[in-house]
């Protein structure tokens, strides 16, 4: 699975890269507009490890934010399934809040929380939280009547069992949403760093942009792609393990 993901990413990356080079050499553009091979090679040698650390830093925040979102969405999803009113209220609120572009909300967050870890974490969580929440509320408030009926009619049903049944029955959907939102968490963290943080790959990209240095950005994109792919593979593996583990309890 890991090989396939990495292989797919490398294919996409190098197709994009080849496209850039094609534009560069066909239009005879300078290295300032699109860097040449030697400059990219130099940027790679000089910044690879630095950027790798920055990407890992970003990934760590993204994972934390993602975890936070999953916990929050599960919690709110459980509350949201209690009554139709609460559920629909949370759903409408989530739709409204996620309609705000994060670049508009981020300055308020940075003013309130400063430009440290907490802001990065919050923005990462915010970006992946709402899609997760909507899916989890949807899943947890949809009865699995064929299984739940027995427990309801023999008065064995409690909320834990109900959540367990609905989560287990929709495990594939849940994992798809979680894996999908992991990418959003990564994007969210990078955006947050780009806007205001003092660390992470988003911050490095901003500096590179200040210096119009596309070579550095290409190195950063490569590392972001690789690390995100690895994280996604890990999540997919985790999903299968959880399903197996729950299945064997």
């Amino acid at each position: 699975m890991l090989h396939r993901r990495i292989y797919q990413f490398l294919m996409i990356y190098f197709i994009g890269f080849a496209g850039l080079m094609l534009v560069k050499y066909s239009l005879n553009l300078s290295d300032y507009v699109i860097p040449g091979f030697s400059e990219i090679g130099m940027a790679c040698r000089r910044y690879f490890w630095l950027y790798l650390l920055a990407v890992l830093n970003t990934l760590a925040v993204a994972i934390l934010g993602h975890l936070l979102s999953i916990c929050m969405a599960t919690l709110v999803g459980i509350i949201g399934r209690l009554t139709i009113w609460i559920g629909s209220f949370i759903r409408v609120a989530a739709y409204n809040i996620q309609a705000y572009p994060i670049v508009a909300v981020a300055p308020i967050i940075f003013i309130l929380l400063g430009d440290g870890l907490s802001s990065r974490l919050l923005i990462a969580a915010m970006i992946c939280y709402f899609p997760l929440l909507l899916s989890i509320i949807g899943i947890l408030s949809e009865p699995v009547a064929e299984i739940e009926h027995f427990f309801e009619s023999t008065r064995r049903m409690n909320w834990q069992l109900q959540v367990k049944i609905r989560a287990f029955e929709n495990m594939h959907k849940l994992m798809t949403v979680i894996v999908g939102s992991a990418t959003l968490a990564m994007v969210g963290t990078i955006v947050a760093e780009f806007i205001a943080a003092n660390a992470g790959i988003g911050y490095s990209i901003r500096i590179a942009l200040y210096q119009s240095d596309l070579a550095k950005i290409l190195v950063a994109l490569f590392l972001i792609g690789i690390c995100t792919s690895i994280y996604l593979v890990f999540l997919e593996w985790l999903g299968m393990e959880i399903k197996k583990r729950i299945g064997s309890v």
Partner: protein
Amino acid sequence: MQRQLFDHFGLPVMGLILILILAGCTPEAEKPLEEVSYRLKWLYNISVVGDLYALDSGLFKKQGLAVNVKPGGPEKDAIKELELGHAQFGVASADQVIRAVSKGSPIVVIAQLFQTNPLHWIYRPDKIPLKTPQDLKGKTIGITHGGNDETIMRALLAKYGIQENEVTLFSVRYDYTPFYQGKVDLWPLYRNAQAPIIGAKLIKAGERFDLMDPSKMGIRFVANSVVTTRKMLEDRRETVQRFIKALLEGWREALDPANTEKAIALLLKYNKETPEDIVRQQLPATRILMMPSAKFRFGAIDVAAWQQTEEIMLAQKLIPVSVYVEKLLKPMNNK
């Protein structure tokens, strides 16, 4: 028969002849304007007032040009657009120009807009009296990592032998809260565009402010200049001349105290978000930075400042080797 023919075709034919004669008589204004695009460095604000003035007063048109003045922004890069052919003229900062040329970009500088870099540092003189550069020691100084202000500040510290560990460099963004709260002593800003706004807030809070000008401390790092491609200059020199003539005239008129009201009204037309009283303060501040004296020939290129800018960038390893910056400077303001 002939009469019949005249009755049938005579009137329309005569009408047509009349139209052709009249068209032949119309003045040369009917000659199509030459279209060019001009990418600004930033959004419509006080730093582009002259560009807008040239456009709005018909100065470009008078030179036979239809100029598409496009606002800039944080992710817009005029030099890249020149190379890609999306624009024929643009505004770029000196460091951008030097960096681009060091990477083989075929661009030249045809006019320098700011004679003094508008990037200054605001501070509270009551809290930190800055008499000499040595007074910077022990202070917390705001810089944008990767930005011009970082380069300028590092050059300043190097020039006066201040080690980096003798000051605290604080990474800044658009949020001024750390400065308002006093966590940061000196905060970078654009003297003409931002200082009137931030200064007004400090005054409202009962505080005094002052501005540290790096050029007064010997760091003359060039800011915005007008650029075009070498090919454009060679192949369409006459167009370049007409463009720069209209542009510089626009700037001169916009900064002429006699045209203050017109310039302010014009800017407010393009930028409705900035209050008029702020624009009134911004305009004279811009004039000081662009027109050091009334007799100054607007747009002149300060070769020594460009050379110093290049030296600073070389020293900070922002470019690997010299680009011989003087070769890029093609002043057109005396034509």
